[in-house]
């Protein structure tokens, strides 16, 4: 058993400072689809009613004993992507999909080859707000605003105060896709791959400006919120997709700029990394300052190997597999969480989380086992080799 001596904030801060916490902090990327499932509310009903969705998020937090920090205070409703400038069409249950379906993205070539010029001229934010957002909903700017405004009001009037009342805070002042990832999503995987190989200078025309803009946006939000963390999503650049020369040319230099800019403000950058980054991990140790980054892994990267490579240099966040949440048994979940704590979190350096995000059909008993094991399990050994 663990004797808790820290508050939620102290526990998270300790890990981010590369210090030993009283126990592993628990920060699942808890999504609304899971909340609705655990509350017995149909996806169609929840996604059409953001207030109900928020209530479900709170209810699960309260009924399952809570966790240590949030990704963000607002529920991830269908138009959240629009509000956070994600270049994707979101298909919502009850609106675009059957009532019982999960929220999904429909990846398509929503950014054309000609749009690179527009992005270069207008900047990413203006391009998104004035051009792409309208394209994504097949509407005009007034319609975009009509979708976003209620979410902002809900976030301000309900979400932030409700979570603050529970003593739990968001970890990130801002969350955004890496410029490389944003382009890949908007162009779609195949077209963007062709851009990288056949028209590399077109891509390089926009990446520097998109990076500067992202740093400015992150900096503004850090200053406004006082939160010393940002999250950068990247699911398309690992050696699962591309050779090192692509990673080194189109991703690494811009990443270093972002992390160093944040680090100079005392801000830790969290990378949300899907797909297998195993072959890319040495770059993080080689190029980023010690303690400046957290890697969220989705279980396709071997988190235990990552620990051996990055121990004492970076922080790891993960990685209960989605399949275990969905079809596993509580004993399997508990055993995996114990292994994570024993082998990755024994000396700090681990934020307990799930692979990518919580499964929309996560079994209640599995979610409970995840949280309870995280709260109560004291590490039994130092590492696999010393076990």
């Amino acid at each position, binding site marked *: 058993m663990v004797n808790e001596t820290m508050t939620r904030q102290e526990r998270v801060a300790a890990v981010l400072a590369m210090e030993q916490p009283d126990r592993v902090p628990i920060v699942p990327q808890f999504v609304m689809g899971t909340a609705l499932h655990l509350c017995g509310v149909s996806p169609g009903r929840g996604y059409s009613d953001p207030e109900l969705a928020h209530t479900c998020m709170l209810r699960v937090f309260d009924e399952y004993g809570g966790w240590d920090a949030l990704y963000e205070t607002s529920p991830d409703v269908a138009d959240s992507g629009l509000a956070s400038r994600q270049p994707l069409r979101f298909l919502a249950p009850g609106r675009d999909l059957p009532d019982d379906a999960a929220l999904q993205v429909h*990846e398509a070539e929503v950014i054309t080859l000609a749009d690179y010029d527009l992005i270069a001229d207008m900047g990413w934010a203006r391009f998104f707000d004035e051009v792409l957002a309208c394209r994504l909903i097949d509407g005009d700017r007034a319609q975009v605003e009509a979708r976003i405004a209620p979410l902002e009001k809900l976030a301000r009037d309900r979400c932030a105060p409700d979570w603050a009342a529970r003593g739990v805070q968001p970890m990130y002042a801002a969350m955004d896709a890496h410029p490389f990832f944003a382009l890949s999503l908007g162009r779609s995987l*195949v077209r963007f791959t062709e851009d990288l190989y056949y028209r590399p200078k077109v891509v390089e025309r926009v990446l520097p400006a998109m990076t500067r803009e992202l740093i400015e946006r992150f900096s503004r939000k850090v200053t406004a919120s006082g939160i010393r963390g940002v999250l950068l999503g990247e699911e398309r650049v690992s050696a699962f997709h591309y*050779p090192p020369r692509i990673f080194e040319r189109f991703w690494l230099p811009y990443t270093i700029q972002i992390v160093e800019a944040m680090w100079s403000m005392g801000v830790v950058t969290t990378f949300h990394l899907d797909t297998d980054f195993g072959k890319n991990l040495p770059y993080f140790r080689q190029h980023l300052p010690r303690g400046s980054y957290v890697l969220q892994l989705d279980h396709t990267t071997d988190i235990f190997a990552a620990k051996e490579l990055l121990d004492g240099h970076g922080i790891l966040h993960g990685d209960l597999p989605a399949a275990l949440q*969905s079809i596993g048994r509580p004993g399997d979940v508990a055993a995996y969480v114990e292994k994570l704590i024993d082998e990755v979190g024994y000396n700090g350096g681990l934020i307990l989380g799930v692979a990518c995000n919580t*499964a929309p*059909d996560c079994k209640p008993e599995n979610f409970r086992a995840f949280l309870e094991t995280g709260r109560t399990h004291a590490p039994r050994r130092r590492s696999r080799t010393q076990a």
Partner: protein
Amino acid sequence: MNAGAGAHSGTGEATASLCQAILDFDSDETLRLSLARLDAGEAPALIIDDCRAAMKIVGDRYATGEYFLAELILAGEIFKRVVELLRPRLQLAGAGDSQGTVVLATLRGDVHYIGKDIFATLLEAAGFTVHNLGVDVSPERVVTAARAVDAEFVGFSGLLTTTFEVMKEATGLLRGAGFGEAPRILIGGGVTTSDVRDYVGADFQTRDAMEGVAWCTQVAQRVRRGQ
């Protein structure tokens, strides 16, 4: 990049040039060479055979770590364009030369398609006849399609855990559908694991498209040898 001696099934400079164009990921040159051979009266099937030989090299280089998914995508796109170019003159995979027939689907409740479509292209390049049913497909439609084409393989792609139950349902229907010999069932996608394979009752699971192609090829070869 060089195709290398003995790397392709055909002979001659034309074959080597076409192969090299694909290995250079040069779409325009590949199409130009294909058209030139077509105009010279060459059988479309021979041109496709040369493209498949190049795709085999691409697959081998992927297997050794020289190439990555990006190169599979680029070569696959070129292969698709050649097939589209020749399709009017070609019954691509006739009954006699197909490695086997594969039905692919993303099942009910899931609309992700990118991985499945990449896999479909790579299977076609490896000589399989592919019936890609698309996304949000009901298990009943899979069974109907598999029966109609006498599928040797059925593949399910999924990026959502919520499709595990549907995969299980579809697998159960296929196993009980009274095929002379039930099709082999494989599953793939970012959230699948060997535990999921066991849960749904599939024969094979992978997150790696080329690994799936290799498995289908090995099974098809074993079946042909009567093993």
